[in-house]
């Protein structure tokens, strides 16, 4: 193996590690945002609301890195797919970070009202979304298409929970118009969590593409 290539493989490993670090950060911010909502903890909410900078920095750094590797090494086959996947996963993770901010903002407004109800489904959604994100990133590291497929299957769970949250909150709003504002924020939060699940799904699809060159997006059957 010649030197330039070893260099490329080393850089690729470092790049993927950096992407994982970003995934860890994004995941942590989702956890903190939901935790802040449930415990009505203003400090934790503020931390998420104003703490997007490290994720944004990594977003730019990883993009530039991918761009440089493409230009300088012109990778082929599995290496090419890894870099293209990294670019896409990077974008998904950055969006997850943004959604955590949106959740924190809604949680802050929600905390200024009396609680509408005891929160059960939304923390559950938070757990599912985080688990999907974690599994998608694990699948990425381990190049595990089975685990990636499991993430894809989980997406329906989140969609179901989101519908359930909406129906339940609708009954509260109909009974007591003073709950409309905080209930809408909860509905928004459930929507954000569902979007986070969608991003985890995108990542899982990218993992399948990276490993097997199969494009499973939009239920396409064909590959490569």
């Amino acid at each position: 193996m010649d030197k330039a290539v070893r260099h490329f493989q080393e850089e690729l490993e470092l790049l993927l590690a950096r992407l994982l670090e970003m995934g860890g950060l994004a995941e942590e911010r989702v956890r903190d945002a939901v935790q802040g909502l449930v415990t009505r903890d203003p400090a934790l909410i503020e931390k998420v609301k104003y703490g997007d900078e490290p994720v944004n920095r990594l977003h730019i750094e990883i993009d530039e890195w991918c761009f440089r590797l493409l230009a300088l090494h012109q990778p082929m086959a599995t290496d090419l797919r890894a870099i293209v996947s990294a670019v896409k996963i990077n974008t998904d993770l950055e969006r997850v970070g943004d959604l955590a901010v949106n959740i924190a903002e809604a949680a802050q407004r929600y905390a200024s009202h009396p609680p509408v109800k005891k929160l059960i489904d939304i923390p559950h959604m938070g757990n599912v979304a985080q688990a999907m994100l974690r599994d998608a990133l694990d699948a990425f590291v381990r190049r595990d298409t089975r685990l990636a497929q499991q993430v894809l299957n989980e997406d329906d769970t989140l969609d179901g929970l989101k519908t359930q949250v909406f129906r339940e909150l609708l009954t509260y709003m109909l009974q007591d118009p003073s709950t409309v504002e905080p209930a809408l924020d909860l509905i928004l939060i459930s929507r954000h969590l569902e979007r986070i699940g969608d991003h985890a799904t995108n990542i899982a699809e990218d993992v399948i593409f990276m490993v097997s060159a199969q494009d499973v997006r939009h239920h396409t059957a064909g590959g490569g």
Partner: protein
Amino acid sequence: MTPKIRAQGLSFYYGAVRALHDISVEILPNLVTAFIGPSGCGKSTFLRTLNRMNDIIPGTRVEGRVFIDDADIYRPGVDVVALRRRVGMVFQKSNPFPKSIFDNVAYGLRVNGMAGSRSELAGRVEESLRQAALWDEVKDRLHESALALSGGQQQRLCIARALAVRPEILLMDEPASALDPIATQRIEELVYELKKAYTIVIVTHNMQQAARVSDHTAFFWLGRLVEYDRTDKIFTNPAEKLTEDYVTGRFG
């Protein structure tokens, strides 16, 4: 699509050394087919079996068959000169004759008795130089020595010379490996233009070049054809581990 060239169980020997093992492949017309693989993998040897250029190397032997338009070019009684007129070749090192630009292109026509009248000959020379994208650069100095041209121009002159006898197939053995990036780009653009009229087979060490110019790619390794597929497939998702290792540079 009916294949233009079809090799069937082709093996090639340099004395006792078997350089090609049982190669079977179909090359389609009006496409560019690239042969890639490490040095000594047999890609150039195979290329040269397609117009029997190896015949001139003593002690060599061919087994198997090569069909061009369904006629076996190794059958007894084949006119090898006529074959090479149909299957032209361009080499790594441009090799213009120490003659004028005009005479280089006219050479094949004259020795093949295809020169015709003076104006017919001039017309064919111009047409060939135009096809090789060289005409505008040399039209005012056709009777100057070809050796005064730059490396890239000399290579395009050799292409014009090959095209003058109106071949059907053009074999190119590393046609741009001695050229700078700009001259290389011109050759690649030319290949793209020429495939409309010709079947082109190109041997290249430069994988990016194979990826850029070819429609199909064949990967050779130790005298065997490991994988042959659409070029985009070979470079994004090859089926064979050996191909994957080669195109990602993990070889050796």
